[in-house]
């Protein structure tokens, strides 16, 4: 397969035909429908899509953090072990230690009533057999490493006393403290200012390189993904519609949705008059999924066939996409 060709490495994570459904008394909503992903060791894999496309649900499905009324089928192979079959206890021992998660709003992700130090020490002591003093020392060390000034003082402060960017640094410090093999970063910079965004991305890449982590980088920002990832998945309404190397996706997108996403990126150069096709309409509700190609309701080039038949993933150009268009 093409993937092996590109990376030539082992896959840490292999998601196979994942389907996640939220069941309630009134109706069931399938937020992720047949997603397959591979994440090789030491690489950054991007997952792109509009909000509501099922990116975060994919992340939570992998972590086993879905609410009780959600149902998950398919395989999630982590180093050959199917996470969907593991007991809660087993899963707990993998979370954090092997697979970590960073969320979009770093302030909300920190418990407001405990100090930053408390939460760091708690995590360190959970994953490493160290004394409290040792954990404290390590925590301060970590704060230093994620470039938080005055870490000895900051250690005793509460999350609300930190700026958003600082909070995200704390979250990264928390992640680093666990030394995971895979980090799932769910829009880690979406709530940050552009300048801070760059700093955080830089920090993440640095950490990733130093620890040889794998990252599943989830974002709605195709530009950010293209700059930072080794491989990209495009997701629309619970389906993967296109995947490939960033260069391929960016320069020769096959799926109309990917093309639309790329065209939606504003170009700072006024001379570069590329035709911009704004995506029409809103993403349909997952409670009311269109038949056939899920994108046909918004696709400018939709054929009759698109309304009835579900396209399958096939290699086209340099990437793999799911579209009936020739």
């Amino acid at each position: 397969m093409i993937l092996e060709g590109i990376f030539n490495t082992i896959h840490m994570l292999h998601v196979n035909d994942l389907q996640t459904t939220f069941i309630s008394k009134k109706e069931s909503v399938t937020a992720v429908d047949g997603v397959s992903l591979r994440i090789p060791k030491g690489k950054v894999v991007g997952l792109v899509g509009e909000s509501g496309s099922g990116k975060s649900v994919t992340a939570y499905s992998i972590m086993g953090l879905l609410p009780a009324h959600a149902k998950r089928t398919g395989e999630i192979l982590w180093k050959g072990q199917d996470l969907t079959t593991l007991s809660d206890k087993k899963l707990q021992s993998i979370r954090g230690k092997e697979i970590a998660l960073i969320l979009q709003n770093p302030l909300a992700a920190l418990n407001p009533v405990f100090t930053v130090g408390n939460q760091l020490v708690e995590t360190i002591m959970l994953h490493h057999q160290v004394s409290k003093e040792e954990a404290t020392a390590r925590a301060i060390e970590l704060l230093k490493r994620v470039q938080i000034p005055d870490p000895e003082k900051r250690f005793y402060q509460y999350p609300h006393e930190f700026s958003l960017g600082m909070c995200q640094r704390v979250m990264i410090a928390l992640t680093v403290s666990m030394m995971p093999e895979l980090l799932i970063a769910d829009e880690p910079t979406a709530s940050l200012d552009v300048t801070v965004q760059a700093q955080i991305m830089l920090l993440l890449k640095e950490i990733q390189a130093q620890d040889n982590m794998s990252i599943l980088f989830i974002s709605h920002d195709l530009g950010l993904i293209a700059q930072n990832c080794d491989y990209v998945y495009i997701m629309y309404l619970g389906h993967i519609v296109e995947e490939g190397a960033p260069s391929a996706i960016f320069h020769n997108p096959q799926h109309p949705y990917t093309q639309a996403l790329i065209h939606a990126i504003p170009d700072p150069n006024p001379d570069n008059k590329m035709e911009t096709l704004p995506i029409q309409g809103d993403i349909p509700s997952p409670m009311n999924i269109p038949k056939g190609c899920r994108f046909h309701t918004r696709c400018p080039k939709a054929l009759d066939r698109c309304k009835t038949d579900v396209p399958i993933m096939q290699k086209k150009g340099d990437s793999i996409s799911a579209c009936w268009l020739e």
Partner: protein
Amino acid sequence: MPYLIKRLLSAIPLLIGITFISFSLMKLAPGDATSMYRDPSISQADIAQIRSNLGLDQPLVVQYAKWLNNTIHGNLGYSFVTGEPTSKAIGDRIGATLLLSCASFGIILVITFFLGLWSGYKKGSRFDDWVTIITFVGMSIPTFWLGLILILVFSLTLNVFPTSGYSNPFLSEASSLVRLGDIFHHMTLPLLTIVIGGVAGLTRYHRFGIISILNQDYIRAARARGISESIILFKHAFKNACLPIITILGLSLPGLISGSFVVEYIFAWPGLGQLGVQAVFARDYPIIMGTLLMSSVLIISGNLLADIAYAKIDPRIGTLS
């Protein structure tokens, strides 16, 4: 400190407002303390003399000003009905009320804590369904009805608890341990009556709190770090869930204080509520005002304590110093 002082100072106009409004309401009600002795054989001259002795013939504002002035000087006056100093009458009763309300408070908190936590955590489960139904029924049962039924069942039929009262007077010579046991024996049924209603109401809030907290990102993030469910529940969720509970407790303090009066009435529990209600019926103004002042002070200081506790738990609220 300035915060505390500011809060305390702001309580003063509140207290003046409370007492003035109550005083006026009380005076608008027909009759006064002397109407209790209107009997055909009592001469009108006697009644008029007593009214003037008690100062009841003066205008409302004058009476209030006098009361306020005396109160500021630490003199709450003498009961019209018993001639007893108001402070002593209240002092005699407040112990019983505090005992009953503090004990019920403590028990309610403990039961609520586990019940709310678990039903919130197991939201939608059979356990949660039952807790929901039971708490709703508990909230909806009329207190006096419940109290009477408890007496009927536990006291009269099963004969395990005394019907009423605070202690067995024969035990006044017994060791303090025996006497304490006796008080608790008497307290069981009134306590149960208060606890059933209290637990029901509070558990609802606690459950809500737990559910909304368990949906927060920081809980998800903590789980993603591999933190165990028990630590999540008892450390991360618990401390946050305390915040709404403290608010509710602060708000429901007036209800708890005045609500226990029905219970005090049924079980002949010699508390402040009983004193106050009897005083309302007897138009015993000094006692009414004393009781009101006392409960207002309790309520205001309870709210203050709630605020302090809130600030202590929630670092986001400005520090007190």
